[in-house]
């Protein structure tokens, strides 16, 4: 049986990747780390919300079939 889609796991993974990449670029002098994090951190909530909708749709499809 396939494991159910869990948006929070995906959000956590994407957030860690994003923060790590931003930190790396900040240390390399390519971006202003604090300004970047401050501008983009709400995107985490948006992405999570979208993924929750996707998960909801997927679960309905699964029940119909």
């Amino acid at each position, binding site marked *: 049986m396939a494991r159910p889609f869990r948006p929070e796991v995906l959000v956590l993974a994407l957030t860690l990747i994003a923060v790590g990449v931003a930190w790396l670029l900040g240390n390399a002098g390519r971006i202003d*780390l604090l300004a970047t994090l*401050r501008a983009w951190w*709400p995107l985490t909530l948006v992405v999570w919300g979208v993924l929750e909708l996707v998960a909801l749709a997927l679960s309905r499809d699964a029940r119909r079939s």
Partner: protein
Amino acid sequence: MKGAKIGLLLLILAFGSTVETAWRVRNRLGPGWGWFMMGGRFQGPSFTFKADQVEVVPSGTPVEVENAFGAVKIVQGGPGEVRIALRKVVFLGTEDKARAYADRIQVQARREGGALRILTNRSDLERPSGAEYEVGFETHFDVVVPPGTAVKVHDEHGAVDVTDVARAEVSGSFDTIRVERVGGPAEIEARHGDVQARGIKGDLKVTNRHGDVTVEDIDGRATLDVQHGEVSAKRVGGLLVSGAHGDVTAETVHGDLDVHDQHGAVRGIDVTGRATVATSFQGVTLEKVGGDASVHTEHGEVVLTDVKGAVDAQASFDDVTLTRVGGPVTVTVSHGAVRAHGLEKGARVRASGDEIVLDGFRGPVEIEAERAGVRLVPAGAIGAAVKVTATHGAIELDVPAGSRIDVQASAQSGEITTDVPGLSATQMSPGKLAATLGGGGNAVVLSTSHGDVRLRGAAAVAEKTP
């Protein structure tokens, strides 16, 4: 909602709040401690840019440098021109942004009142301009001045290094100030940083808070006001130190040594003039003093060696030790011992709580002892008055051959014993003795309550001190 979702939501919101708070702190705190305590705008990636400038100046033009958040270094160069090198360190995320900002940082060289004044336009750049946030940048000056230039430097938050100038006036904070090889006087005012001054031909004046001060090879008189820092002085033409909470060490003072310290130990070696020292809670050590020595300490010991002049020592709760003193000695000690060797012109001693030993003294001696025994060993035949008053302590006096003395001794609740050859008693009763030796001439008055009095002759002395 599952617990994992709630946990993740709280984690993201906490992360966002932290970022927002950091952002607000960075934008609201101005330059100063806030930035340094938190890293602030002087943190993160930085890029360095350089700018050079040459100013032609008439001979003897004084140079003044003002700076903040960066070092200032001044050295001697060729005549007729002042070479200014500015190193700009800009704390911005990208090199392009940093270069654009660095281009706005300019050297300003102005003629004011016959002097060349060098500074940057930092004050214009740091004015609120509606920018996203203030940019951190350091400005480091390397200035080459003509020979014989008088220099004045004011630097906030940066090291200052001045060498080979005619005279120097330097103020700075939060880093080390170093001034060397100055042809005339030098004046240094520092806060939260060490001060080093060497090779000053004129007088030196240093004021420092929270930092150590090291001065060497000062031809003139050095005046040091140092709070919360240690002082080290070598080869100075006179030294005045006032301060608190720091030790003072002075070696080879060609003049007077004057130290007013608190909570700091004082050590002076090879002082040609007079030495005056006052401190507390620490000891005082002086060696090779050419003039008089006056020492006052509370809760600390006093050790004086090879003093040619008079000694005035006051101490409490610790001992006074004197060795080879050429002038008259006055010592007052409470709750401490007095031990002296080689006093050439006698001593007046008031002490309590511990023994008093004068070994190898000449001249008149007057001693008041409380709860203390007294032992006196003259360097030769007694040739001056000796008066000892003690309570709760014994008195022991060696009488060398050839002494001419009239003895008046009394011992309440004690015994009087003598083994001095030739001493003839004129009056003797329990606890009292009047006697003469060598025809008399010098009064020896020994009086104690609750103790014995003993007069030891040359033979007895020879047995104990071969």
